[in-house]
């Protein structure tokens, strides 16, 4: 593999990691809320969060394009106030990866939170801990295995993300081209050798991530 190809792998990994950082706080927050509460909006929130998992990725990409495009509600505001463009830049890549991996993280984290026995949290409260302290010192540590499994799964999904990415970030070599996009491009350009090489690299990374995730999920029980 050439230097450019290794750079491509590096770019994909960086984007996947960055998207993880972006998706963790909201993902954990939503998962925690779904695990602990039974409010009115619960079913709607559950459905919204699961949507990227079941809709065609291009549809998610389309929604992101509408929202974050230069004339979209969020993209327009960013462009006018901060002079910042999202679509067709690396930011859109992070956005696409985060959107597609959010459902996986939320599902895994929610299960992990639900499995934390409430008695520990209650006892922590009798010892004077407020909700934030209970979350960070009791709930999160006790749920960390399941959450880590979810993070690995989300990471693997990010690395393989294509449909939403190509819609909202395009396939700009050096700027938004991730591994899956590069493979697609190679296929379009009749470069099967490159396509299979990159596919192999993808497969190895994904396999390692999913294997680690499964191991973490299993040893819990």
């Amino acid at each position, binding site marked *: 593999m050439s230097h450019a190809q290794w750079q491509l792998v590096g770019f994909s990994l960086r984007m996947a990691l960055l998207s993880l950082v972006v998706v963790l706080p909201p993902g954990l927050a939503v998962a925690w809320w779904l695990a602990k509460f039974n409010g009115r909006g619960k079913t709607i929130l559950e459905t919204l969060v699961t949507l990227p998992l079941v809709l065609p990725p291009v549809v998610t990409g389309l929604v992101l394009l509408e929202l974050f495009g230069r004339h979209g509600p969020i993209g327009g505001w960013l462009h006018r106030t901060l002079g910042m463009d999202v679509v067709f830049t690396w930011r859109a890549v992070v956005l696409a990866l985060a959107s597609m991996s959010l459902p996986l993280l939320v599902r895994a984290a929610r299960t992990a939170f639900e499995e934390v026995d409430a008695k520990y949290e209650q006892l922590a409260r009798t010892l004077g801990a407020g909700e934030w302290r209970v979350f960070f010192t009791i709930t999160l540590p006790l749920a960390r295995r399941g959450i880590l499994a979810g993070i690995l799964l989300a990471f693997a999904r990010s690395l393989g993300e294509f449909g939403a990415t190509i819609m909202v970030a395009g*396939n700009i070599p050096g700027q938004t081209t991730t591994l899956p996009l590069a493979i697609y491009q190679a296929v*379009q350009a*009749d470069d099967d050798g490159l396509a299979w090489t990159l596919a192999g690299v993808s497969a190895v990374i994904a396999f390692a991530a999913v294997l680690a995730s499964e191991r973490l999920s299993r040893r819990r029980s």
Partner: protein
Amino acid sequence: MKLLPSLLVAGSLWLTVTLAPAATVTVFAAASLTDSLKDLAATYEQQSGDQIVFNFAASGVLSRQIEAGAPADLIFFADEAHADGLEQKGLLLSGSRQDVLGNSLVIITPPDHAAMTSPAELTNAVCQHVALGDVKSVPCGTYAKTYFTQQGLWPAMAPKVIPFDNVRAVLAAVETGNVDAGVVYATDALISKKVKVAYAIAVTDGPKINYPLALLKDAPEPAAARKFASFLESSAAAGGFKKYGFLTPSAPAVP
């Protein structure tokens, strides 16, 4: 005998199916031909009774699909290179290939942008994203790159390029305003009301754009395909293409 009426019904159905004169012709055509071909095919279907089925995409994608064995009767590509590729692989019916149409390139922008006096303006800092068809597989993109290279603008432009899978995707990108400019065929710009032609590249300045039409050697419906191909090459069809802004042998330049 209650069996007789059923036999009669079954028999007539069978006859209808086997003796039906209507054939289905499959055409793999460049995306830029979408509207014009659909229009002409509608007319043809009424006249001939045959059915035309299209697969529109970038010529590069189409040629790959055919190489992989996709069943098609006719190809109608936007550049010679991809047709050459199929010809070299012996997939085209020799002697059937014809250059039917020409086209020219235009630089389009969202409607609120100022007009351009020269393509060099694309290299300005204010222009951040330029949408092109993927230069490796989409003819429109390849043509655009050739043109810009000829003009000495390609090195400055390359970093701004956002590649798309086909010319219609380029058009859509400019329509949404998410890119500053794009290069499409003049015919595509005519279709859309949401873009503005900022600069028309003269036919003589730009690369020669040819639309070859050919039959495939393993066409499922060779007779019907030949009939449709002749129709497309006829002057009646030429009028239909001209309406959409294409250059035909009888009208080699945009007025």
